[in-house]
């Protein structure tokens, strides 16, 4: 019986330690919170990523450093969540008009469906969502490798919804002027992203 007690205690300690490690100390239970937790704890430096924008030209994600970037992920055929996501970004663009005009902030919508989302589709997505001039860029990765790099770096996962569309973990990535992804906030709470920015936009 003593040996069983000893074995059980060892198992209990090892088990609780494993559970604690798997949940970052009982704080993280889903992959989504784990992704955000990890990004907050260890900001990620942006990778080089070739993107094609709505005018057909190419930019590198690294070229956008030096200002705050708020990034969301879309596919333009989406008619449900993404339309709300689009109008939230439109509102955010209005609210952040000042830092945007000063070149201190840019909104960036990246498509994870580059096969379908060409410059024309992305432009019509912006128009449909109510874009207010400059300061909101829509772009797509130019090849399969950049798409994989983009999804990995931001931790975005899109799965088929069984009806020709996608379901994805949508959120707003916050990138600081040094070019580091420092936070991921709920897309339904863009004010959180805005607060992040307005608090530090001047600095």
């Amino acid at each position: 019986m003593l040996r069983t007690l000893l074995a059980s205690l060892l198992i209990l300690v090892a088990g609780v330690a494993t559970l604690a490690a798997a949940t970052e100390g009982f704080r993280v239970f889903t992959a989504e919170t784990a992704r955000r937790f990890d990004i907050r704890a260890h900001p990620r430096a942006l990778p080089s990523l070739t993107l094609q924008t709505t005018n057909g030209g190419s930019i590198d994600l690294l070229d956008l450093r030096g200002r705050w970037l708020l990034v969301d992920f879309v596919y333009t055929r989406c008619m449900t969540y993404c339309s709300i996501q689009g109008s939230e970004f439109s509102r955010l663009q209005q609210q952040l008009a000042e830092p945007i005009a000063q070149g201190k902030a840019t909104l960036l919508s990246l498509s994870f469906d580059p096969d379908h989302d060409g410059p024309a589709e992305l432009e019509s997505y912006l128009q449909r969502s109510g874009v207010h001039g400059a300061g909101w860029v829509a772009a797509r990765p130019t090849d399969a490798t950049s798409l994989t790099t983009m999804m990995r770096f931001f931790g975005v996962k899109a799965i088929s919804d069984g009806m020709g569309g996608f379901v994805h973990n949508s959120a707003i990535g916050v990138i600081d002027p040094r070019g580091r992804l420092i936070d991921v906030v709920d897309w339904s709470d863009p004010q959180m992203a805005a607060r992040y920015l307005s608090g530090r936009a001047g600095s």
Partner: protein
Amino acid sequence: MVLHMLFQIPLLVLAGWILTTALPRRFCKAVAPWNAYGISGILLASLTGSVWMLPRMLDAAVDDFSIALVKWISVPFLIGMPLALSWPRAGFVVRGVFLLELIATAFRLGWLYLVSPVRLCNSYLLDDQQRLGWLLLAIGVVAVLFLAWQLLWGHIEVRHLDK
């Protein structure tokens, strides 16, 4: 998600349970004193089970091959096998506690999956999660009814090896 949690993992447990019959007798005899009434084994199986119930771990097992490998090894050997070695040794109370906790977990997780407005796994759709919720509740209800029937009208005889 339903396939992952209600077929793949239970099948891996079953595989471990069946593999136990191939264990040499000497091994079973050697671990027996460390596993009076099956307590250590059931504890090991329960804790390992809790790890694989974390939505994060399910997602990781889908996305990351090395985690999937850990799952394929740990579920049969740390859940199926200890259960097979412990269940025959467990008395009425140990079995009761384990079954009660299993049923409570089915209800808890089932309810959570049903009411959660967000996807707990990035790899699965919301309707899949809700279907799993219903199935877990159904499994919980059937298990309760079965146990109640056993307690009221069944013949319960727990003959365990530790006397």
